[in-house]
């Protein structure tokens, strides 16, 4: 996977993860173009589109669009499921996730993503294991918070 973007129906970026080194200028350009292209697509259209030499796989969950860029030889359907698994993870962690959770706790959303995907590849596909890793790190946070309180 080359990158993952989360943006709202209004076109506001909520999360961005780049797995290939690009300049800030390029990133902004890509984001702008993609957000426009994806938002312009109709709901009945398929979740894939060819864009430059990449394949864009996107899916909308409520007000949020999840959008991944993969290479041509990659499997589009499994990428859709990666998105879905990520949503499941967020859902489980936040307890029926909504856009607000991701806005206000975007760093948590990043932590979860980093446990799930690493370097653009699926790292751990077991939901339980991902959440366990996150919880362990969070637990530490609370222990420390208690200790300092």
């Amino acid at each position, binding site marked *: 996977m080359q990158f993952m973007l989360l943006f709202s129906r209004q076109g506001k970026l909520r999360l961005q993860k780049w797995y290939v080194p690009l300049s800030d200028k390029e990133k902004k350009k890509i984001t702008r173009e993609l957000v426009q292209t994806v938002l312009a697509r109709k709901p009945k259209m398929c979740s894939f589109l060819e864009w430059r030499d990449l394949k864009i796989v996107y899916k909308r969950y409520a007000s949020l669009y999840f959008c991944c860029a993969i290479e041509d030889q990659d499997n589009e359907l499994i990428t859709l499921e990666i998105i879905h698994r990520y949503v499941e993870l967020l859902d489980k962690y936040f307890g029926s996730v909504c856009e607000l959770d991701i806005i206000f706790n975007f*760093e948590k959303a990043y932590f979860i993503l980093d446990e799930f995907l690493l370097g653009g590849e699926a790292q751990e596909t077991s939901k339980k294991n991902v959440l366990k890793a996150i919880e362990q790190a969070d637990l530490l946070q609370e222990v420390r*918070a208690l200790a300092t309180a």
Partner: protein
Amino acid sequence: MSDVVEKTLTALPGLFESQTGAAKITNRLRQLIKSITELTSKHEEENLIKRELSAIKEQVSSPNTTMKQMREIMVRAMYCEMLGYDASFTYIHAIKLAQQGGVLEKRVGYLAVSLFLNEGHELLLLLVNTVLKDLQSTNLIEVCMALTVVAQVFPKDMIPAVLPLVEDKLSHPKEIIRRKAVLALYKFYLIAPNQVQHIHAKFCKALSDKDPGVMASSLHIYLQLIRESPDSYKDLTGSFVTILKQVLGGKLPVDFNYHSVPAPWLQIQLLRILSLLGKEDQSTSELMYEVLDESLRRAEMNHNITYAILYECVKAVYTIHPKAELLEKAARCIGNFVLSPKINLKYLGLKALTYVVQHDAKLALQHQMTIIECLDHSDFTIKRETLELLFRITNAQNVTVIVEKMLDFLCYVPIKTLTFAPDNSWFIQTMNDVFSIGGDLLQQDDPNNFLRLLAEGKPEEDDQLRLYAVESYLTVLKGHTSHLPQCFLQVMSWVLGEYAHLQESVDRREVIRLLTQLLDQRSVSSETRVWILSALTKIPEGQTDLILDLAESLSSSQDTVLRQQAQELRHLSQDSQLREWVLVENSCAVDSSLSFLDGFVSEALAAGAAPYKPPHQRQEELSLNLEPYSFSLPVSLSSCSITDRQSPTLLSVSSGLSGNSAELSTLILEGVKRVWGKDGYLPQKEATAPPVDEPSAAVQPASQQEAAERIEPRPEPSTQNQDKQQLASSLFVGLGVGSSVSLVRKLFYDGFTASLRGNVMDCLEARSTSVCHYALLMDDPHTNVSLTGTVSYQTQPGHTNTLPFSGTLSTADFIRPLVVTTEEYGKLWLSLSHDVKQNLKLLTDAGDPLRTTLNALKDALQLHVVDIIGSEGIVACRLLSGAPCLLHCRVNGAALAMWLRSPHPALPDFILYHCQRALAHH
């Protein structure tokens, strides 16, 4: 702005309070987000973020800010960056947070680093020690964080520093650590394959890890390795098949199920690997038939994930050595995809079909109707994929229909399709449509391919086609031309220029008139004008009056190229002899072997250049990192050999040096000796001359000892030189013919010969004078190098006169600006190893001391000022055709702290010396 968010915001005040602990900390962020949602314009947002950023700036630089506060600040900075604002001043603090914070802060610090910094960012260098420390931590979480950041952003040159630690983690008792370590190695493999080659055995261990997560991660590496060389991993086929069987048989823990499908990601990865292994290999393919069959059979459930697996399975079946039974099943699967009402599956069905029709075109027949429907689909993606499919099944019978469809679709016609064209008129007509509709959206190659098609045919056969093209284009040009795309106009003018003469009945004046008319149109681009003028040049003579008129009218054009062409046109039309000589019919012979460059190449080789290697044979320079903790970490440039590192004198020289010239002179000797001692480098600097009566003398310091001494010219022709001379005579043949004074030139340098390298650029001879240009390069920098030479000439055979001359050159004469972007600078900076730091005088007489000083340096020394940010400036330069040198300047009180880096050990010292001088003279 976002009204939905706003509504929810007011509806959900409880959300903020319900959070414990962390909520308080991120309060500022909440405020920020909330106030942003309340704004109504982009302008207000900009102002708000500006204020926020300046508040952050103040906070980060305050010494009272605690780590905890810093963490909160960092989150806000990340948010601002996500909104598209620049918060680069916080980058360094992100690194500090990762370095100094507790686990909690580290987590945010590392996250910020991975979001802010790219692989090549110079600040990453500062992260290396932190990562090393955390990798050795006893706290698992810290190790995890370090591995995560390593697998995301890590500078290539730093890999050797962490590699042993990451390797160790492959045998860590915790599976999460092993898994992350495997992925970190995968990442290393992607960015620097040769650095992880030695640990293949450990990958193998990861593959047989008892934890499925670790094993699955290792497959990423294997997929990559096998993609590159499938033959080396055939023996693993059995293992992969067994793993896939176990997965299918539900042997993995239920945790890995996804919607009750066992480990789909793992399955897909394995299927990909198997298809690569079985490609064009019958015996290996036979090993996997059974498991593929089972895969196809198992994936029956109606869920996206099973389709994902099926799709991969079908691809595998069609990639490996074919087996009828499997092919049949796979074909049925594809049918299900194509016929599916779900649009995503339909798309994949078309994609699979596109892949499969290459092996079995008949398969498309079964789905004719669906394909036709898809052609008119409202979704662009589907339509495009269908056309891709059609393109693959184009043949002589269906070409007209398919091309028509393609034309409907934004003119997406690969020229190749048209090789099946049924007849000439159809072909030209279609191409006219393609060019006029698709026009400038076409790929650059398309018009070129078309023209080549026209040009390459045999005259007898294809004259028909060309004739038709000429006729058709004349018709087009007689109509309205203002709307035609530039590339079509270019194609037409080329064709008319080349082939208008084939058509007897065509009036040449008419052709000229039509083309000239185009020139008058304002919409015609200057590039097209050049095409048109070239065409006019080619149209046979006889219409001098028209051409002269044209040339006259263009002679006042603002475009210099056009003016020049018009001038040429005029000359050619007036001088028929010249014209015949320049425009010989069918004289276009291309030397594709580039043999005319042989001379140049052999000269370059003789001068020590490396022989050409095709890109795929090039191995990256192996970065050696011997001291992971030393200050200058990366050593990746070839000019720094191991001996450099072992020589204490050199190390000390490159670190501490002032502008003292006595010290400099000892340095020079060191440098010279080293170069000579290493591989007996012989500078190629002898001037070669046009045909001469006696062989020109060579100055070749032959041995190490001599190099240190002053070298006297020794007229001693070597065989190598004679060869070069022959080369020169063949290169410059014709230039010196008939000169009555024949010259022999000699050029040599003083004791520090080793540092200069020269070559004759060109010699222009006239009857009584001769101009000779030499290109001199400085290989090893020195403060001053004196240059002496002689000119020998013969006024009568046997009697030689000699004139000596001399001059002095300094390093400053060889410094040239190196134009790089800030990013390239950052990358380069990291890759350079020899550095020198020194405080210099700051010119304080103007308002902006840094800028004034840098400009003074720039003027004096031809440096390139890359960027000035606040109190820091970055500057780059290089030796002429030689090593680069980067300068990092920072205002430090009343001084300018300068930090120079270069791949060349001595270069920074000399540049520093010249900077000092330039500033002193200012």
